[in-house]
């Protein structure tokens, strides 16, 4: 039983001498989705390292990040979850909708909260049913609604009769927005055409041939990993006008557009966090990267997904602070962490104070609403300057469409799993 001794030795070696806040990072630095997984994980870990180095942790308790490679694979995700949950994990950030679906029931049974920032199960926004799952500041249905709203603005308030194609990753992740878009197409009178791209997304010739033939007015994309780069290249190949091609916030990072070179100029995507330079980056550079304590190779600092990973870490750190405040203890438990997340409030002043002014929308979480504000903005790629330019302010999603959908889906989940909704 060599494995037993090894795991045991590892557990002993890793077991803390002092109190610490354990944050597992289920990352993926290998496989077809690594391009997105690496910067996010770097940002997530580097921010906690910054807090440890600069402030000695959160509320005086150091943060211990345990990284576990999932390869975006649900089986490995389960293994990582089981391997880390015994260490006193406070919150899981799986960065994969598939793994999120796996973990929602498991983590709920174990009483550990999950934070799925802008991904995962959308109806988890209904906190009365999904007590342990949080998807603030925004979710996929918000993204779909924000994209449609942006198109309305572009077309002076009406997109009736327009053809919109959705190119999506053929998985739980890509299928999430379809229902919302169908509802929106009924409301606003546009025609929706959905085109599935199978994992991992390297083969999209037939989908783009169809787009070339049908010439939809707009193409929306729910892509991730290598799929994004291929889609943008294919769009360029058929000379589809880039300014009519809009990705969601997981299809709008530097590495998605750079492979297509100048041809990607004008590609638009949603974003839920700002992309400008912020004072916190200088601090990370000085305290973390220059000291050689960075998680990755340090080259991703300031990129879209690095910023989002850092933003996720900031929201987690703020929730920990909130939990410490509510319960009056420094070394919090997962249950207390959940309370902290539920009472989280992000204000402009607080973001300013943390050195990241305007990084995300202002929002507050409550038991009924685990979804945050749902706002997103639209950015455009400038291939000349190699930067994302922000085109709009944060756009409010259409709650009139989304709220009933969230209610219906979460209630179906509650019925299936015998959960009684309630905030007590």
């Amino acid at each position, binding site marked *: 039983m*060599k*494995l037993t001794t*090894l*795991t045991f*030795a*590892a*557990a002993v070696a*890793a077991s803390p001498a002092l109190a610490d806040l354990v944050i597992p990072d289920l*990352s993926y*630095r*290998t496989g077809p989705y*690594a391009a997105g997984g*690496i910067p996010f994980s770097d940002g997530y870990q580097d921010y906690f390292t910054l807090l440890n180095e600069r402030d000695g942790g959160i509320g005086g308790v150091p943060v211990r990040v345990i*990284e*576990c*490679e999932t*390869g975006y*694979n*649900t*089986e490995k995700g*389960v*293994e990582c979850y*089981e*391997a880390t*949950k*015994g260490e006193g994990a406070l919150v899981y950030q799986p960065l994969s*909708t*598939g793994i999120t*679906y*796996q973990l*929602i*029931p*498991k983590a*709920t*049974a*174990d009483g550990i909260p999950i934070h799925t920032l802008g991904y995962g*199960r*959308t*109806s988890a926004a209904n906190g009365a049913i999904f007590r342990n799952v949080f998807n603030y500041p925004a979710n996929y249905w918000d993204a779909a609604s924000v994209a449609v709203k942006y198109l309305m603005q572009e077309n002076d308030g009406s997109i009736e009769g327009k053809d919109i194609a959705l190119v999506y990753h*053929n*998985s*739980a*992740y890509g*299928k*999430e927005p*379809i*229902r919302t878009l169908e509802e929106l197409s009924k409301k606003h009178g546009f025609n929706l055409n959905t085109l*599935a791209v*199978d*994992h991992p997304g390297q083969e999209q010739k037939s989908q783009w041939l169809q787009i070339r033939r049908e010439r939809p007015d707009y193409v929306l994309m729910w892509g991730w990993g290598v799929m994004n780069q291929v889609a943008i290249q294919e769009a360029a190949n058929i000379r589809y006008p880039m300014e009519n091609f809009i990705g969601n916030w997981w299809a709008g990072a530097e590495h998605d557009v750079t492979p297509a070179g100048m041809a990607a100029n004008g590609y638009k995507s949603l974003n839920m966090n700002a992309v400008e330079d912020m004072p916190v980056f200088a601090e990370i550079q000085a305290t973390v990267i220059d000291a050689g304590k960075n998680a990755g190779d340090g080259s991703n600092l300031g990129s879209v997904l690095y910023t989002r990973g850092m933003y996720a870490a900031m929201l987690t750190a703020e929730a920990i602070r909130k939990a410490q405040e509510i319960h009056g203890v420094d070394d919090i438990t997962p249950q207390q962490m959940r309370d902290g997340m539920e009472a989280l409030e992000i204000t402009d002043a607080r973001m300013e104070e943390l050195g990241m002014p305007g990084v995300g929308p202002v929002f507050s979480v409550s038991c009924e609403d685990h979804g945050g504000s749902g706002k997103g903005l639209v950015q455009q790629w400038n291939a000349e300057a190699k930067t994302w330019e922000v085109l709009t302010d944060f756009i409010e999603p259409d709650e009139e469409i989304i709220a009933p959908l969230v209610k219906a*889906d979460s209630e*179906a989940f509650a019925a*299936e*799993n*015998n959960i009684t909704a309630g905030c007590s």
Partner: protein
Amino acid sequence: MFYREAGDFSTTYPQDSQTFPIKFDRYRYYVVLAIAFLVLPFVMNDYWANAVFVPFLIYSIAAIGLNILTGYCGQVSLGTGGFMAVGAYSCYKLMTAFPEVSILIHVMLAGGITAAVVTLFGLPSLRIKGFYLAVATLAAQFFLVWLFNKVPWFYNYSASGQISAPERSVFGIVVTGPNTEAWAKYLVCLIFVTICAVIARNLTRGTIGRTWMAIRDMDIAAEIIGVNPLKAKLTAFMVSGFFVGIAGALFFAVYLGAAEVGESFGIDKSFLVLFMIIIGGLGSIFGSFAGAAFMVLLPVLLKNIFVGGLGWPTDLAAHLNFIVAGGLIIMFLILEPHGLAQLWRLAKEKLRLWPFPH
């Protein structure tokens, strides 16, 4: 010395035809069963169950299923992933449509449905063989994945296309869903594995197994001596499908709890199970277990050594994992093309003569 036939007299026909004719083998088998049933459930924790034992047991069933088809009957199949998906989705549909019926019955019914589907896809094997059959089963793999993605009825019209297992219990003990105890999960899989392995072992020792092997070794010769190829091939597909279906159902309901067809039952799953039987040994029940153990445990072991033991970065460990596992597979295939089962067989031959080999 202790491993020998000599001195072990059979006085009845059942004794003469038992599975393990050598006394030592028989006792070893009982000891393994006793440990698996009486010791391990009491020391099982979540990590060992979910990361090691449950996947190992479930993949063992799938490997036994594929081994019957490929190892015993010689029909190459690349559709195992898709066939497991049939088991998973039929189990899901049955679980949600008839919640009052026991999950154990649903798992077996899922196996039956898969057997029917696999037999249907086995029909071309009467006309084509070898690579051409492999391509036909590959088509089945892609077709089934496409089907479960395309038709919302299979996933009960859920927004995400995910299926998730509701909570079900056996004799008051929860066996699916998030509140399942580690030992319950493990025991359910263990019971299915034991029954499947015993059935498979006895089938392959009997008339049916012999007709399969006759077809595998030379189909024309088999036909001349009176083996009906239609019956032999289709029974192989059917039995194989039954086991693979049970594996798929358990994989979804007991192990993962939620699944998505493209991700959980893709082409890589077909290859994984095929590698298991190639490394374990074609045409051997023990080989199925050995291959499943090798493919499931090695990555977990390497990960624990590299990341847990040595503290290396996770991406380096993941990449090294590919290299080491791939290297070991190639090494095994060069040094022992008949798989781990052949090593076991050689060890037994040596043991029989030990300590006086001459």
